[in-house]
């Protein structure tokens, strides 16, 4: 079932939760909504579900405007962040609840509950109440309750937030498998975690303060973020955002950073219109900074290491470039092991991975030969 949302607005008192959100999700797509807490993700999902009303705008499910359609007629299921299991009912009754409300025959209920319990490894918990289940079991029970009606649209509101790290990893894979198995079911997945969005979403919509700022594939979102907010949200560790200034030199234009200069050539088409002295924001992915081994093939600078965070396979280094600008870089362990705190290292930047943003608006400045807005 495809979902089209147009110009949704919703205010809670003086707080504008949604300010004109428009989205189109294809049938059968796994669509992630990424945004920090308070961005309006939950409100958006609740309006699509029908348990919240919009002040203005419309929601179309499968081409049909659902404004006058009651919740139960929308063929939509939702998994809540708190799981929202019925605490007074057993796992069996929790799973059976949607079917009972549809007046499904008893035998059919028992068959489908057992089938879903089997699929989600809940069979041993059927006689127990939610309070006695582990976090992972509660979450699978909530998913089972959502799936048992075979909805055509599944809304997931931060379903992994209340789980521990190991379980999150397993469940991410589980969700992808579920999506493949369910086939035609559309999934909209809201999360504040860029890792979840990137790893599961076929496309990602980034929500910021009630507005959609970018809709793209995970790869495009990472490589060509639409603005500095998206750049800061996507990628781990977060991108280095640095103040830069445009300079004219005898051989062309240059972007001056406090510790080095970058050739502005790749952004020539847009930057040509700007005067020298224009302030820019330069985005350097931690993965794009590396120590100089032989001859530097890009711009280079010297930095002092002041913090190392070894993570096993990689190490995150906090460095001070030219003694003043703080940067973060990531190195594979085999390169990082001989670097210690207070060492001085020569670094270079992979010029292909530099992102450029206008200083005032934060909007991305596209490289020559690519369309604006990524």
């Amino acid at each position, binding site marked *: 079932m495809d979902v089209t949302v147009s110009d949704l607005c919703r205010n809670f008192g003086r707080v504008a939760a949604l300010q004109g959100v428009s989205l189109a999700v294809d049938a059968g797509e796994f669509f992630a909504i990424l945004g920090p807490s308070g961005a309006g993700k939950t409100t958006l999902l609740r309006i699509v579900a029908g*348990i919240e009303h919009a002040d203005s705008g419309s929601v179309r499910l499968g081409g049909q405007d659902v404004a006058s359609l009651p919740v139960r007629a929308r063929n939509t299921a939702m998994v809540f962040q*708190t799981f929202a299991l019925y605490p007074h009912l057993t796992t069996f009754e929790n799973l059976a609840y949607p079917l009972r409300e549809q007046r499904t025959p008893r035998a059919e209920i028992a068959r489908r509950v057992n089938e879903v319990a089997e699929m989600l490894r809940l069979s041993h918990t059927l006689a127990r109440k939610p309070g006695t289940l582990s976090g992972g079991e509660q979450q699978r029970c909530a998913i089972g309750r*959502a799936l048992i009606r075979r909805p055509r649209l599944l809304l997931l509101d931060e379903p992994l937030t209340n789980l521990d790290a190991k379980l999150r990893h397993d469940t991410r894979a589980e969700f992808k498998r579920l999506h493949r198995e369910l086939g035609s079911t559309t999934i909209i997945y809201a999360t504040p975690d860029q890792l979840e969005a990137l790893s599961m979403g076929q496309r990602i919509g980034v929500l910021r303060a009630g507005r959609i700022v970018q809709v793209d594939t995970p790869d495009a979102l990472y490589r060509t973020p639409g603005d500095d907010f998206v750049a800061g949200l996507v990628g781990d560790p977060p991108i280095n955002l640095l103040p830069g200034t445009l300079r004219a030199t005898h051989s062309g234009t240059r972007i001056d950073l406090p510790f080095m200069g970058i050739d502005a050539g790749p952004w020539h088409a847009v930057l040509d219109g700007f005067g020298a002295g224009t302030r820019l924001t330069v985005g350097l992915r931690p993965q794009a900074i590396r120590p100089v081994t032989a001859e530097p093939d890009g711009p280079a600078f010297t930095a002092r290491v002041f913090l190392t965070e070894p993570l096993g396979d990689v190490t995150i280094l906090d460095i001070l470039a030219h003694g003043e600008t703080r940067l973060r870089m990531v190195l594979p362990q085999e390169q990082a092991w001989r670097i210690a705190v207070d060492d001085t290292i020569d670094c270079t930047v992979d010029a292909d991975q530099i992102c450029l943003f206008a200083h005032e608006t934060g909007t991305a400045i596209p490289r020559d030969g690519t369309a604006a807005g990524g």
Partner: protein
Amino acid sequence: MSAREVRSIGQAGWGRTLGAAAVSILYFFPVLFIILAAFKTRQDILTWPVKFVFTPTLDNFVSVFFRVSVEGGAAEATGFGRYFFNSMFIGGSSVLLALVIGTAAAYGFSRFPLRGNDTYLFMILTTRMMPPIIAIIPIFVLFRIFGLSGTYQGIIALYTAFNLPFSIWMVKSFFDDLDRDIEDAARMDGSGEWRVFRRVCLPQIYAGLAATFVFAVILTWNEFVFALLLTGTETRTVPVQIVRTIGGAMGVDWGLLSALETLFIIPVVLVTFALQNQLLRGVTFGTIRR
């Protein structure tokens, strides 16, 4: 609750244990005194110092139900069974009524707030804050006009009205503490508003309803002033009868009085004991980690 660790006396310290025991005995002493007196003869009751060792007798309990007249002749029923039934019937039905109406009102106040919701709630609470006796004269007049004096309907309606504010406030607090997502989940699962209330919200607050029931039952069971003024011989409750027992040609029959009071305590103790787990969960509702 089942896996709770029980401290031994040694852990608390003997000093504290004895101190706590002394305070408990001090507070429980009047009740203990009454219960002991119920099993004593008139002589034993009036002996000073107080006797704690004596030959128990059931005479007082017999005279609760049967009166032997001074002139001799057959024993005559006192009608105490009737008053006991009245207390239970009037208390039970008015509390149940208040609970049903109060739960409906509380759900409305909690989930479908009106403009000025808090004002209504405040007004409901203030009616409970004033001493009920203030309203006795108009109520007495109303009972006269409508012919409700001495009837079951009258006193049950009155007690229902007095239990309502308390029931509404208490039950509302239980509804307020519920996780709203669970109700939304039920709506997504296809429930209409009635079934959200009946199948999802109500079962979650059963413990709270039990706690409210017990508190209201105790209040109603002990009520005296309105019962004295508005019940008749047919509908008289136990507290009124207890007071009527004081006095008489032979002076106060302390043994009879003690026996009456001992019997009067039993139902409240039983109800509280039967619902103690719910009571504990009810009063600690919302303080539990989610």
